[in-house]
C-alpha cells in the first residue's frame, strides 16, 4: 500500500540515489587503494568514481584537499537531490542538513565568543550545513545578537528555544551547547519521521532504528568522554536524547555510571552494544579506551565498531524500497567512504602502512 503513491513524488530521487550507491567504492577498490604508493596513485584509483572533481588537484595533494574535493562531490550530488525533491521528501532531506548546521552554528558561536571576524569562518563551515542566511549571522558582533539572529534566521530555532538562552551560549562550554542542540535535533527528527503520515511504513521503521542507534551512540560516547571532566552527572543526563534502545532504563544507568564498567553495565541490556564492549575489552574493566596503542589486538576501537554497525545498517537500508531513508543511508556511506579514503591516503602520505587496513568497507 505504501508503495502505491510513493513514486509519484519520491521515485526519481530514490532512483538517483540507488544509482549513486552503485558508484560507492567496493572492497576491490579499497584493496587497490591500499596498494598505492603515492597520493597520485590514490587519485588515479579514484578516477572512475570521482572523475572531474579530482582533476583540479595539484600533483600529490595534501590529504585534506583530497577529502575536500570528495566532499564537494557529495555536496553537489546532494544538492541535486534536494533540487529534485518535493513535499515530505524535501523536508526529510532538509532534516539531514540540520546536523551540519549545528556544527556550523557552533563554529560561529565559538568565533563570536572570542571576538574573531566570523566572516573568515564561513569557508570553514560544512557546505551541507550551509543555508542562505548563514552569512547574516556574521553581522552579529556579540553573543546576544547572534542568539537573536539564530532564532530568527535559522531552522534551528526550535532547538535553541526552551533549552538554551543567550547567557547559556556565553557560559556553557561550546561542546555542551553543541550536544544539547544535537540532542534536540535527534529528538525532533525522530518525532518527524514517526508522526509524518507520508512516512508510515518502511521509512518509519528504518529511520527509527537508525536514529535510535544514533541516539544511543551519542549517549554512550558522551558518558565515556565525560569521565574526568567537570561535566556533572545532571548536566550529562540532559545531553542524552530521550529515545533509543537505551532509553529510559539504560539512560538512567548511564547517567549514574562513574566509570567504564558502569557504562558497560548500563548498555548490557542491548546485545549489540554489549558485544561491542566485550569486543574491545571494556566490560572487563581492563584495557584502555580501545583503539591504537594499548588497545585491543585487532586495532578496532569502540568508535570503529559503532561506525561499522552504522555502515551495516545503512547498507541494509538499500534492501528496502519506497523510502527517502536511502538518501540518509547513502550520505552516511558516502561520508564513511570519504573518511576511509582520507585514512588510506593519510597512511600512505605518512608512511604508516601497517595500519592502512583500519577502514570500514561494507560492499
Amino acid at each position, binding site marked *: 500500500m505504501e508503495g502505491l503513491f510513493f513514486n509519484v513524488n519520491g521515485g526519481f530521487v530514490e532512483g538517483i540515489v540507488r544509482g549513486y550507491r552503485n558508484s560507492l567504492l567496493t572492497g576491490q577498490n579499497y584493496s587497490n587503494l591500499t596498494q598505492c604508493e603515492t597520493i597520485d596513485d590514490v587519485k588515479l584509483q579514484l578516477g572512475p568514481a570521482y572523475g572531474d572533481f579530482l582533476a583540479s588537484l595539484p600533483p600529490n595533494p595534501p590529504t585534506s584537499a583530497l577529502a575536500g574535493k570528495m566532499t564537494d562531490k557529495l555536496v553537489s550530488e546532494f544538492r541535486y537531490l534536494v533540487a529534485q525533491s518535493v513535499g515530505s521528501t524535501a523536508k526529510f532531506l532538509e532534516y539531514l542538513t540540520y546536523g551540519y548546521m549545528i556544527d556550523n552554528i557552533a563554529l560561529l558561536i565559538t568565533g563570536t565568543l572570542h571576538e574573531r571576524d566570523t566572516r573568515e569562518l564561513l569557508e570553514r563551515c560544512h557546505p551541507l550545513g550551509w543555508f542562505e542566511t548563514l552569512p547574516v549571522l556574521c553581522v552579529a558582533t556579540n553573543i546576544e545578537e547572534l542568539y537573536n539572529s539564530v532564532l530568527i534566521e535559522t531552522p534551528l530555532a526550535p532547538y535553541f528555544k526552551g533549552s538554551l538562552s543567550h547567557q547559556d551560549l556565553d557560559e556553557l562550554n561550546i561542546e555542551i551547547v553543541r550536544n544539547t542542540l544535537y540532542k534536540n535535533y535527534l529528538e525532533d527528527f525522530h518525532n518527524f519521521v514517526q508522526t509524518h503520515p507520508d512516512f508510515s511504513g518502511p521509512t518509519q521503521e528504518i529511520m527509527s532504528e537508525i536514529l535510535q542507534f544514533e541516539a544511543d551512540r551519542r549517549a554512550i*560516547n558522551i558518558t*565515556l*568522554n*565525560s569521565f574526568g571532566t567537570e561535566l556533572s552527572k545532571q548536566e550529562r543526563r540532559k545531553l542524552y536524547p530521550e529515545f533509543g534502545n537505551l532509553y529510559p532504563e539504560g539512560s538512567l544507568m548511564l547517567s549514574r555510571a562513574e566509570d567504564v564498567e558502569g557504562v558497560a553495565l548500563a548498555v548490557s541490556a542491548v546485545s549489540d552494544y554489549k558485544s561491542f564492549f566485550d569486543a574491545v575489552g571494556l566490560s572487563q574493566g581492563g584495557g584502555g579506551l580501545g583503539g591504537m596503542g594499548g588497545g585491543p589486538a585487532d586495532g578496532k576501537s569502540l568508535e570503529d565498531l559503532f561506525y561499522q554497525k552504522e555502515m551495516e545498517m545503512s547498507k541494509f537500508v538499500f534492501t528496502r524500497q519506497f523510502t527517502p531513508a536511502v538518501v540518509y543511508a547513502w550520505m552516511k556511506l558516502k561520508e564513511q567512504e570519504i*573518511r576511509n579514503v582520507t585514512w588510506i591516503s593519510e597512511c600512505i602520505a605518512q608512511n604508516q602502512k601497517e595500519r592502512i587496513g583500519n577502514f570500514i568497507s561494507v560492499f
Partner: protein
Amino acid sequence: MSGAVGREPVFPTRQSLGLMKSKLKGAETGHSLLKRKSEALTKRFREITRRIDEAKRKMGRVMQIAAFSLAEVSYAVGGDIGYQVQESAKQARFRVRAKQENVSGVFLPQFESYTQDGVNDFALTGLGKGGQQIQRCRETYARAVETLVELASLQTAFLILDEVIKVVNRRVLTKSSEHVIIPRTENTIKYINSELDELDREEFYRLKKVSGKKQRDNAAADAEILAARKKAEAEEAAGGVVAAEPETADILGEQEDNDVIF
C-alpha cells in the same frame, strides 16, 4: 722569540724577582686550569652535539606518530577540530621550568617539562564523537612535546657551550697566556737574574779594588813605619825619645782592614 716578546718594565731588584716568580707560577697554573676547563667543556660539547643529532632524528619519528594520531582524530570526529581547539586554548597546561646544571663553572640551563594540574581547556572537545581519540592524541602529543623540550635543552646547552668554549679557547690559545704572559715573565726573570748577577760581579770587583788599594796603602804605611822605626832606632841610638805614637795609628789601620773584608 724572546726579543719579540720583550719584558716587563721593572727595576731589577730582588723584590721584583720574587714578584715575577709568583706571577709566572700563577700564569702557569691558570693556563693549565683553563686548558683543562676547555677540554672538559669540549668533551661535554661533543657529547651534546652527538645527542642533538640523535634527538633530532628521534623527533622526526615522534612527530610523525603524533601527526598520525591527529589523523586518527579527524577520522573519528569526521571533521575539523582545529578552529575549536585554537579558540578554546586559554591556559597552558604543559609548561617548562628551567634548572641549572654546572659544567666546569658554566651554568647550562636544563628545561624540565611539567603539567599544570587542573588546567584542561579541551576536556569536553569531542564529547559527542571522537573524544577517546582526542584524549589519546593529546597524550601522544604531550609525549612528543616532552621530546621536543628535551631537545630544546640540548640545543640551548649547545648554543651556550659553543659561546663559552669560544671564549675559553680564545683565552687558552690566542697567545695571551701561553705565548705572551708566560714567556714575558720568564724573560723578565731572566733579565732580573742577569742584572742582579751583573750587580754582584760589579760589587765584587769594586770590593776587590778597594781591598787591593787598602793593601797597597797598608804596605806603604808599613814601609813608612818601618822607615820610621829604623829612623827612631837610629835616633834612639842617638837620643831615643818618640816611639809610642805611630803604634796607635797602626792599630787604627788594622781595624779599617777588618771592616773591608767583613
